[in-house]
């Protein structure tokens, strides 16, 4: 179903990002082949200029990818109106096997572009550009991800037939026993909430420890903790938080909270979770390049900042995710 404004906008954005990515990759290949830090030849000066181009292009690409990610979910929500049996974005995304993979690739893509930009920012802080080769190797690795993203999205849009019957979220995330189509089922709400709260406390303690004294193993634990917490949060948002937001016990959908009916609450939720996870994971990752010439101080400063930011965002995120739940417990329901 390409003849629809949402499909067209998504395709257009993807093509634009692909073009930007290809131009950046061209620079990457030249840098990998001809980069000579000590030289002052014309070519080296040109390459040093081109570094700016590629980093700007990737930064634009990141911004555009974030927009396409939001657009993709909103488009799925729009598509559900024409797919028989789908009642919200979940149903639309499950209408064919490419929907969910496309969404996940987009989501993880945002993290990878973010890591690349971090690498670039660290690199240009040092006079020697110590990370140039790693950076451009990584850029070349990002390109297949981008192609995969565009391919999955195109396959998804092409595969949407306006009359396929799909299961809607009430079935998909519902609590019916023995249903094989359920994505998320079988966890007790109490258990999940306990794990969620426990993880928050754990992360705060580890983060606090890191701020007091930086230790490599603790940093690794922090990154792993964030990865775990990210996945756990997505599950908790889907199965617990969302139904308190909707005030409907059987409506468990991670996408409808993005809609105006719920005051765009989802944007606040995901808008804190994703950056928090990014900072949480990126701080230890930045530690991997600490030993490079001229980066020691820069990395240490970034790590402190990233851990602080991730902790602040974590606090906001937990406040947001518990808000409806506590409101329900205290006031005894809506209204």
């Amino acid at each position, binding site marked *: 179903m390409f003849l*629809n*404004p949402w499909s067209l906008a998504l395709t*257009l954005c993807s093509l634009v990002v692909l073009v930007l990515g290809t131009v950046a990759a061209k620079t990457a290949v030249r840098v990998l082949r001809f980069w000579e830090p000590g030289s002052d030849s014309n070519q080296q000066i040109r390459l040093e*200029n081109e570094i*700016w181009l590629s980093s*700007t292009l990737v930064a*634009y690409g990141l911004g*555009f990818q974030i927009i396409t990610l939001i*657009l993709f979910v909103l488009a799925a929500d729009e598509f559900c109106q024409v797919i028989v049996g789908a009642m919200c974005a979940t149903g639309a995304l499950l209408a064919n096997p490419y929907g969910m993979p496309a969404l996940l690739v987009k989501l993880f893509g945002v993290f990878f572009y973010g890591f690349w930009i971090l690498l670039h920012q660290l690199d240009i802080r040092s006079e020697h550009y110590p990370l140039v080769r790693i950076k451009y190797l990584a850029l070349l690795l990002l390109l297949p991800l981008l192609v995969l993203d565009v391919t999955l999205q195109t396959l998804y849009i092409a595969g949407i037939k306006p*009359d396929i019957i799909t299961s809607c979220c009430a079935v998909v995330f519902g609590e019916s026993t023995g249903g094989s189509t359920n994505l998320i089922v079988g966890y007790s709400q109490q258990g999940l909430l306990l794990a969620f709260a426990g993880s928050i406390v754990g992360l705060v303690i580890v983060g606090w420890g890191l701020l007091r004294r930086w230790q490599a193993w603790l940093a690794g634990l922090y990154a792993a903790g964030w990865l775990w917490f990210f996945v756990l949060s997505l599950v908790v948002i889907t199965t617990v938080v969302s139904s308190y937001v909707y005030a409907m016990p059987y409506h468990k959908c991670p996408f409808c909270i993005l809609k105006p009916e719920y005051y765009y609450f989802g944007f606040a939720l995901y808008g804190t979770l994703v950056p928090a996870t990014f900072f949480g994971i990126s701080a230890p990752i930045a530690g991997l390049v600490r030993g490079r010439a001229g980066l020691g101080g820069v990395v240490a400063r970034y790590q402190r900042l990233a851990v602080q930011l991730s902790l602040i965002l974590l606090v906001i995120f937990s406040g947001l995710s518990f808000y409806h739940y506590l409101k329900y417990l205290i006031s005894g329901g809506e209204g």
Partner: protein
Amino acid sequence: MARHNLEKQLNILEYALSSLWRHRLKSLSVLLVFGAVIFLLASFQMVTQALSDKAKQVLVHTPEITLQKMSAGRQEAIPLAYGDKLAGIFGIRRVVPRIWGYYFDEVRLANYTVMGLEVAEMPEGARLDTTLAKGTMPRPGDDAQGWAVIGYSITNALDLAGRDTFSLFRPDLSLKPFVVRGEFSRDTDILTNDLIVMNLADARDLFAIPAGLVTDLCVYVANPTEIETIAKKISETLPGVRVLTRPQIQKTYQVVFGWRSGFGSICLLSALAAFVILAWDKASGLSPEERREIAILKILGWETSDILAVRFWESVIVSGLACLVGMTAAYIHVVYYAASLFRPVLMGWSVLRPNLHLLPRLAAGDILLILAFTVLPYLAATVIPAWRSATVPADSALGG
């Protein structure tokens, strides 16, 4: 640190604003063309949105299931007796026969929609009075014949200002007289503008449909979640009958509007492409003064990234202003001028056009869609020229 960065960005923003002002003719021309492109795309998007919203609103009151008899792939009259066969299906509130057709007026060269109903039998029949500007619908037990309730355009077309009787031709060209007993209010124009509602028997007489036949049967279902099941049961009981459910019709409207809007957007993509080329061209043509300016900035200690930031802010300001102008103009176009530029594309080709009051609801998602369509290509088109201008070597620009 953060404060320092913020101040730096603010200063760069100020510089970008003053730079735009210095080249105000160039900026204004880009702004106007960009605004026009956004206006076209946004109007299209808003009309589609408003029309599909309207269709959704209107369809809420249609019967849950409509039955039509098909023969050789075409619709034909359905026997009233079919309704009795549905008696065994639980969940059906009522089956109401209906005659529904077009009457072609050879004088006005326009089609009127004629609907013959047993008003008293309809579940909400008693509430139909609320749609009338004057007159009343017949009450249950009122067997009056020869009456008609008409829409606004019909009053004008038949020139019924001073009188309340009119006649329509039967297929054999004999005349059938009607007395107007009500007129639909203008608020329901989208449905009733070209509509003549009459008694079922009168409609049968007008179209010369044999007794015991109607054009379709409306099935009212008590519980909306049972619509699909009941529709399935009906199609099992009555093979050869087309069963249309309300959700299906709703989805079809969505697809049609989406399709038309997509088609329109594709046509407008050429305008967008032309604009992107213009933007690229404007951004890459560097005059000697601009080269000098950048060279001086560099000598003063600006870095490549600072100049890139200036260019970025310039693009953001231009596209932000263009969006504001374009979307406001589009909103005015849709709300106050009923989208007169695009209405023929999105609506039918009927001669009697209803007077539409479209009210687009602009959710954040729709704004994002319009932004993705317009601003993203613009930003992408200006980034490479921006980099070219940012990497002008200081010595060559000043020396030459």
